[in-house]
């Protein structure tokens, strides 16, 4: 039994998300290899060899793999699949886009977003926005899996001694062309790996008011998130969204500000270690899951919070606002 983890990267460095899938793969009990397909992504392949528990890194180098297009990657994964009992990727937009295409080409089912490995053929996965946990057994010989990052610790990025093996390219499908990417550059920690997250909801009223959230987040070295309502209202971009259909996060501390606590939002953050909520409405459902609740007007509470962090000497950065 052996598992192949499909690496996610930007041709320069391995995305941390992949380390969670390595841990899930190791939990299966067999060997773990990693596939790095990219354009001049040798550095990523080298980095993957150092991940603890990795036996071998398959490295395919072709311009066709520069942007992680599923149409080009799927045939490459399928060509390598013969040697593996399990094919895994983290359930990021990259993994969610690619793996079902791989599964269908192999004529096998996919297990999406697993949160636990019970045995090599049986897994637990959330359904109904995390309101029902299903234990599912695969009846196929080969298992294609996406992994919920927050349910598996990241594998150590150092300490491994894998070997790189170059593999041939399957070329370009010619059907899909990457045009451009508009990626957020905030300098704040990424939501899926942030230790603290401060999120704002509809009650923030405008994108401009998110400065109040940012002022607190920057003092704590935190990531900034948002509810679907705030994203749909155009206050902040889509990549801020925490929830069933956005990002699933599990930081040490999640501060929900002006978020009522819709089921779909809770699905994305209820595994946080500690939840604090600030909301004007004492009956808001968010208080049913919050460890610490403060009933207050956020426009008053957020500046106070920033000032209090300064006062208690807890601010990481010198406040600009």
């Amino acid at each position, binding site marked *: 039994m052996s598992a192949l983890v499909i690496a996610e990267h930007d041709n320069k460095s391995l995305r941390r998300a992949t380390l969670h899938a390595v841990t899930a793969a190791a939990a299966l009990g067999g060997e773990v290899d990693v596939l790095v397909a990219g354009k001049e992504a040798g550095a990523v392949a080298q980095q993957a060899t150092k991940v603890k528990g990795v036996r071998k890194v398959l490295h395919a180098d072709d311009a066709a793999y520069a*942007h992680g*297009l*599923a149409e080009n990657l799927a045939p490459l994964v399928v060509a390598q699949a013969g040697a593996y009992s399990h094919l895994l990727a983290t359930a*990021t*937009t990259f993994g*969610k*886009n690619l793996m*079902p*295409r791989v*599964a*269908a080409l192999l004529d*096998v*089912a*996919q*297990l*999406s*977003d697993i949160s636990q490995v019970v045995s090599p053929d049986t897994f637990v996965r*959330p*359904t*109904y926005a995390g*309101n*029902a*946990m*299903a*234990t*599912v*057994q695969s009846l196929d010989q080969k298992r294609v899996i996406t992994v919920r990052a927050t349910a598996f610790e990241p594998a150590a990025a150092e300490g491994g001694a894998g070997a790189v093996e170059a593999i041939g390219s399957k070329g370009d499908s010619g*059907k*899909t*062309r*990457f*045009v*451009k*990417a508009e*990626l*957020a550059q905030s300098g704040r920690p990424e939501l899926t790996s942030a230790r*603290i997250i401060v999120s704002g909801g509809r009650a923030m009223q405008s994108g401009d008011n998110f400065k109040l959230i940012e002022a607190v987040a920057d003092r*704590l070295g935190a990531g900034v998130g948002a509810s679907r309502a705030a994203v*749909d209202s155009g206050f902040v971009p*889509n990549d801020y969204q925490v929830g*069933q*259909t956005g990002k699933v996060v599990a930081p*040490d*501390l999640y501060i929900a500000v002006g978020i009522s606590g819709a089921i779909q939002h809770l699905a994305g953050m*209820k595994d946080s*270690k500690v939840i604090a909520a*600030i909301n004007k409405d*004492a009956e808001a459902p968010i*208080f*049913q899951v*919050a*460890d*610490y609740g*403060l*009933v207050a007007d956020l426009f008053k*509470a957020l500046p*106070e*919070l920033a000032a*209090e*962090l300064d006062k208690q000497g807890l601010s990481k950065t010198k406040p600009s606002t």
Partner: protein
Amino acid sequence: MKVMVAVKRTIDANVKVRVKADGTGVETANVKMAMNPFCEIAVEEAVRLREANVATEVVAVSAGPQAVQETLRSALAIGADRAIHVQTDALLQPLGIAKLLKAVAAKEQPRLIILGKQAIDDDNNQTGQMLAALLDWPQATFASKLKIEGDSAEVVREVDGGLETLAVSLPCVMTTDLRLNEPRYASLPNIMKAKKKPIDALTPEQLGVDVSPRLKVLKVEEPTKRKGGVKVADVAELVTKLRSEAKVIG
């Protein structure tokens, strides 16, 4: 250009789901059902393409028991021209559904197939990608903007770091994200009109598709519940608790 849209009947998004006491699944008896919200966005997008004279016909497809015809009627009320019901009481899983849709696409020859990115019941997020693989078509998943230009489509996708734009050749499969559009409410006249639109019935056998499940659900449980904690009086107490009691800051 013909556009095909796949729709799924799910528990209504506003219903609080309850796990059955015997652990076999979730309670669906006497529970309000509706079209999966992402599928509504898919139908809306297809209808807008027809209204903009980009699409000539919109065909809605669903698979499942007799009751899915209600969902197809909803699609017709939004504005789909006709519907196809793949009738079966079998347990359907994404790979089987993708095979059914492939077989329907072979008959219908659409240039574009739109699906929701995921259904809010099983949260699988698979069928569109699987269908694209089986058809050997390109896939534009998690779309927030679509522009058809001749023989290709330019699609903006919602990805983890922000947005990505792809140009895909037609025919293609697209799956919808939340911000692609805001589905209209079907008007009463359109609901009445929808009752007269045709729904053709097919079976998996007629389509030559084996839909046998590949996954077996062993049990379904409630997640471990989080308990509410304490209310704090003011910001100072909140910070103090987070620092000295929870020890998550400082």
